[in-house]
């Protein structure tokens, strides 16, 4: 039996070089609809995905990164490549956030995965609930102009496509318990603790405040 394949061995490093060239060509040819990469963080590996307009999705490992990418392929575009460069600023800022050197994110956001009232809620959350603070679901409902829509606010936060950067972890129940979170209650608690810890430290390096 002829096995011609084994006479054409492929070096994985060479394929990586070709992949890098494809990333560049796709970017230059305006064919890279979604670029993604993964980063390590204090709450586990995070998937970051961005369109040309901005950060589209941040996903926790518990969501299954493959199924998140599959869903982006169906909902936004299948022209998806692992192409870290586009996510460099986001990755750097997340790193600064987790080490306490950043209190707000300065990256463009792509809101394509959020519509209607959910988007209104998340945009308010993004501008009105600052680092180290928390808000109740009811308070966020008032901020969003629909004080009775507490349950809908809960859904908006639980389905936030850009967690951490859009800080739905800062929205907690009126009784003080953390409530539901896309990355699990443990991750929500960890983020709240991180911000509380660094809130104490804030007085020490006020000079560095942006």
């Amino acid at each position: 039996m002829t096995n011609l394949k084994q006479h054409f061995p492929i070096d994985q490093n060479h394929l990586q070089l070709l992949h890098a060239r494809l990333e560049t060509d796709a970017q230059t040819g305006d064919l890279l609809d979604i670029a993604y990469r993964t980063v390590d963080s204090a709450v586990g590996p995070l998937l970051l995905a961005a369109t040309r307009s901005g950060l589209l999705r941040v996903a926790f490992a518990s969501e299954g990164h493959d199924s998140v990418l599959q869903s982006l392929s169906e909902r936004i575009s299948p022209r998806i490549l692992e192409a870290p460069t586009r996510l460099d600023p986001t990755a750097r800022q997340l790193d600064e956030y987790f080490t306490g050197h950043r209190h707000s994110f300065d990256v463009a956001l792509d809101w394509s995965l959020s519509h209607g009232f959910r988007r209104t809620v998340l945009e308010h959350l993004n501008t009105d609930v600052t680092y180290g603070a928390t808000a109740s679901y009811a308070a966020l409902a008032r901020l969003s102009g629909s004080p009775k829509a507490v349950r809908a606010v809960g859904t908006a936060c639980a389905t936030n496509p850009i967690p951490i950067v859009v800080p739905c972890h800062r929205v907690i129940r009126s009784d003080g318990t953390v409530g539901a979170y896309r990355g699990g209650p443990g991750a929500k608690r960890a983020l709240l603790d991180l911000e509380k810890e660094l809130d104490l430290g804030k007085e020490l390096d006020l000079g560095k405040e942006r």
Partner: protein
Amino acid sequence: MKVDQHVKPPFEAVVQQHGATVLRVVRAVVGHADADDAWSDTFLAALKAYPRLPADANIEAWLVTIAHRKAIDITRGNSRRAVPVADTSDSPAPERADPHDLDLDAAVGALPPKQRQAVAYHYLAGLPYAEIAVILDSSVAAARRAGADGIATLRRTYPLIDTPRDQQ
């Protein structure tokens, strides 16, 4: 109406799954020197066309079809640019990061184009001759014959072909 139960994977999954096969195919069809360009042209064109590809399409056959056309473009471009140069076959091969068998390259390169393509698409990409006939725009019988003739010639010109590589 047939309900389409296939879902289209992210393009990255296509590159991961088929990148090595396409590289083998283009190395056989255009040779090592032009293989990287052929691979890049193929996947860039595939990325462009991917949203329009039916979800139940045979992705490997689709990629080989694109690679076939890109290889033809590259070969034509080379013959247009071709200028007489001194024969350099006696000069020592430069150190390569990705070593390959020059005898095999020569043997595969010496096959007539149709045979070389049929051998690559059948023995390297694993496509059935029915698919290869469509790509080569020939009958299934002619594609099968090209593949059989090509591999028979290779057995003569490169006898190591039937030897597992780790025993050489």
